[in-house]
């Protein structure tokens, strides 16, 4: 049961921004509602205004955008799962979207809603990091772009100003020959850990790597030292070095003890799953696929 609110359905970003500016903490953006309606029901948030941004034109669009993939803020997980543009440019993202929560949440929940809510236990922000994601924020005053890593500041905390809305997230497709994987692990309703890996190739060598770890700490992070270590190695050698790289990554995360486990356990699981994900990515780079299966693990 929800307490009463007014429902605004702005036709433009400016209109939405006006209401946000006017009502401040008494207002909340609303798209799919899978996050905001839950916290309203729980009484953790009270608002007088909900601002439904689904009628703002273009906000749901998923398209190629000057070499990038642009995913509109109000695109649902389901739309992302099925969009030809996603499959063409960043197919891993389609796979990750397919495994978010459950079918009902995917039908209604939006990418923008997910990123703006910044629940630490979520998949999309993690996988977006290995696509050098940039979010677009807009208000009456104009637009700006921010790398995702700067947008997500902490648990449930973003850089969105009070009168801004997130309008799109732009992903950079990997160069030809790159391979990657996303692996998520957890027993609970939300994921305990998510690892995204991208391996960029230069012939038989790894030209560059991206490793992102999410869910274990307040926000997802790229594991820079691990990425650095990978650069230059032969792909064929990866298996031998995967432990070392994984250990580095495990040292870089800031896990938090919660219902999902102790920080000690999460750090060790980071090591385990960074290694496992690297091996999946490496196999794919070599044109094979591992048929690895682990309990409570989804390999995308």
């Amino acid at each position: 049961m929800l307490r009463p609110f007014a429902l605004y359905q702005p036709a433009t970003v400016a209109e939405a921004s006006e209401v946000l500016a006017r009502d401040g903490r008494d207002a909340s953006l609303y798209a799919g509602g899978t996050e905001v309606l839950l916290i309203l029901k729980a009484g953790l948030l009270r608002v007088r205004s909900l601002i439904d941004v689904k009628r703002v034109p273009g906000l749901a669009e998923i398209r190629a955008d000057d070499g990038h993939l642009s995913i509109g803020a109000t695109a649902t997980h389901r739309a992302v799962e099925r969009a030809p543009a996603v499959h063409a440019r960043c197919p891993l993202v389609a796979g990750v979207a397919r495994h978010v929560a459950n079918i009902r949440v995917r039908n209604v929940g939006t990418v923008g809603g997910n990123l703006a809510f910044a629940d630490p236990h979520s998949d999309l922000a993690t996988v977006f990091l290995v696509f050098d994601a940039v979010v677009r924020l807009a208000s009456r005053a104009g637009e700006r772009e921010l790398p995702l890593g700067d947008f997500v500041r902490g648990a449930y905390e973003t850089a969105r100003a009070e009168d801004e809305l997130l309008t799109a997230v732009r992903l950079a497709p990997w160069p030809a020959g790159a391979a990657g994987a996303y692996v998520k692990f957890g027993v609970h309703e939300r994921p305990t850990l998510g690892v995204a890996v991208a391996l960029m190739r230069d012939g038989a060598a790894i030209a560059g790597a991206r490793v992102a770890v999410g869910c274990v700490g307040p926000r997802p992070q790229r594991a820079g030292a691990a990425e650095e270590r990978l650069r230059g190695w032969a792909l064929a050698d990866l298996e031998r070095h995967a432990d070392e790289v994984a250990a580095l990554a495990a040292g870089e995360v800031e896990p938090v003890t919660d219902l999902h486990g102790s920080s000690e356990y999460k750090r060790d699981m980071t090591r385990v799953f960074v290694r496992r994900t690297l091996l999946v990515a490496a196999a794919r780079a070599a044109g094979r696929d591992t048929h690895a299966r682990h309990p409570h693990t989804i390999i995308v």
Partner: protein
Amino acid sequence: MRAAGGRGAVSGRGRFRVVGQSVRRTDALEKVTGRARYLCDLELPGMAHARLLRSPYAHARLVRVDVARARALPGVHAVLAAADLTFCDPTYGPALRDRPMLATGVVRYEGEPVVAVAAVDEATAAEALDLVEVDYEELPAVTTLEEALAPGAPLVHTGEPLAGHFSDLATLKAKPGTNICHQFDYQRGRPAAFAEADFVLEETYTFPRIQHYSMEPHGAVASWDDEGGLTVWASTQNPFSVRAELAKMFDLPASRIRIAVPLLGGGFGGKTYAKLEPLAAALARVTRRPVRLLASVEDAFRTVRRCSARVRLKLGFLGDGRILALDCRADFDVGAYADIAPRVIQKGTYTTTGPYRVANVKLHSNAVYTNTTPGGAFRGFGVPQIVWGVESMMDVAADRLGRDPVDLRRQNLLAHGEEFAPGDTPVDGKLEETLGRLAEAIQWSQASPPGRAKGVAAMMKASVAPSVSEAIVRLHADGSVSVLASTVEMGQGARTVMAQIAAEVLAVPLARVSVVPPDTAVTPYDQTTSSSRSTTMVGRAVQEAAEDVLDQLRKIAAAKLGVPAGRLDVDDAAIVSGPTRLPYPELLDHHFGMRGGELIGRGVVAPGRTAAPLGGSTPFWEVAMGGAEIALDEETGAISVEAYASVSDVGRCINPQQCEAQDEGAIMQGLGHTLLEEMVYEGGQLLNGDLVGYRVPRAGDVPPRVETRFVENGDGAGPFGAKGVGEGGLIPVSPAVGNALARLAGIRLRELPLTPERVWRALRERRSPRPGG
């Protein structure tokens, strides 16, 4: 109770018409079409909607409760705090009357109701609660057994305990000055026997706080009539207990109270004994209109749970494998109010020796208050908590003796007809057969492939005794039949089974039998729908009532035909004598001299008190065994159950498909507390009191291979030789998995659930044991 073959329309051929058939449930159609009606669907004219303000603190003094502003809100019919409950006795509880409808002077757990509002709709009720002002003064809380049992621990309850309404608990034994509200002791044989054992194992096992998560939470609708009579529609498993409670609280004769029970969306024990009904009745009284009080799932987490436990077991074995002696000291955490936990600790502890022959037994258990959600009944009723420990230790012993775990169990099993305890019912099943079938089902003699291992566990549980079940069967003038029995339908299919029994005895088509919904004004007394007892106890009552009708029909026919009643047969809704067929309508017509009237049959199953240790002899022994084959991801600690087999001795499956359905559900619920579920408290705060934080099994958790098997020797006291089913399938799950884990990875965990992290830690310990560890 003697084994009942049933005198019904079997015609001596041993074939049943409808018993033993997997007939479609009588409520299946309404459930798949959405026409089924549960408590939350009930609407009455003028009905008010109630909401509760619940305490945010685990233990606090209520300094001030100010409801004036809430009362003044338009649309609010009533706001009640403890001080307003002057028109009734506001305390209740089946064992100890320790639970106030609304917190009085002190709150004893996070989530305890403090204020109740009834308003024109839910939104107004919620708004009204926002206007209530409560000042709390926090008090030190005890939220673990260690804290609650520490000398000088803060007391959850002070003051003299009052006994509730159960005769077997008239001897409640609290330990004054402590948080122990009841103690159970049992002893037989010689305590000195331990000294004669060739080795003694001593270990402690713990079992977590588990939430029932019936998908339909609790709820009640109460309404008073102009003559001062009370009707309550309730999502409850025992309407007669609720009636007794309300009679006492509102000083009404039982005949002026009606408890009507619709379909339940699950129960599992969480809906036994009064929960929300007293508050609904109080609100209805004050508002003078019907009031509906529904719990949310989050409310349910703060209404009742499974009693957690710490079980210290000492087992003495002889070198040849015989169990010589057993000592159990169990502490059950029963939360802030006792509910039925005193009986839980008794029942659970009493069968610590399970299906085994043990001459020397010493049992002691405590029911310990803590400032947490009250612990009550939950499928298994104390037995899962104990069996987790005992069945794990049987494997520890097998390992020590170099014996096969199945073989060691077999050696110690009680024989058919052997005494379990002096005064109680002898063992009514062939335990060895059940064990043999389990070994077969799990392919015990075949080694597991690398990376997998198997474990087994066995259990035996008593059903509540003494107990009473009565039933009425009405044969209408047109030959159709109504069955009046107060068994509650909570998904287990019991009401379909009652129809099958009546249809079988009277040889009428199942479609011509209606089972009247439980209603204390209409359907006769049944103690409770729990304890796996309904098929045996209520089923027998229904069978007897139907046989009573049959007797009457035979007498009428005998008089009409001038033939001895004993020479008459029954077939296809008619009494038959040679070539002569007398359909029932014809017989009634003849008997009454008109087309009208009915025959009424009555069944009463009331074995009464006996010399058995718990006050009554169990009507049947529930026996079930389980085996698990698991794999382990050593890096993460995640267990995957690759196969699970369950064998239950049910005497006779009245409806085989429903028996399977029960055990398949029991297995998954067992895997829940084995691998996934735990209510997590930090200090006195419940951290995961919703379905995001509390993880119940999903379809993807079902093992790739699941087998359910049933032993049917017709040796139960229930109709057609039936016993009970429903709890047994759940109980062996955790030790079966724990034993498989021990065999696979050489680690023995003694707490549940076996989360990946717990297993991971144990594996690390195994690799590099801490010094002195």
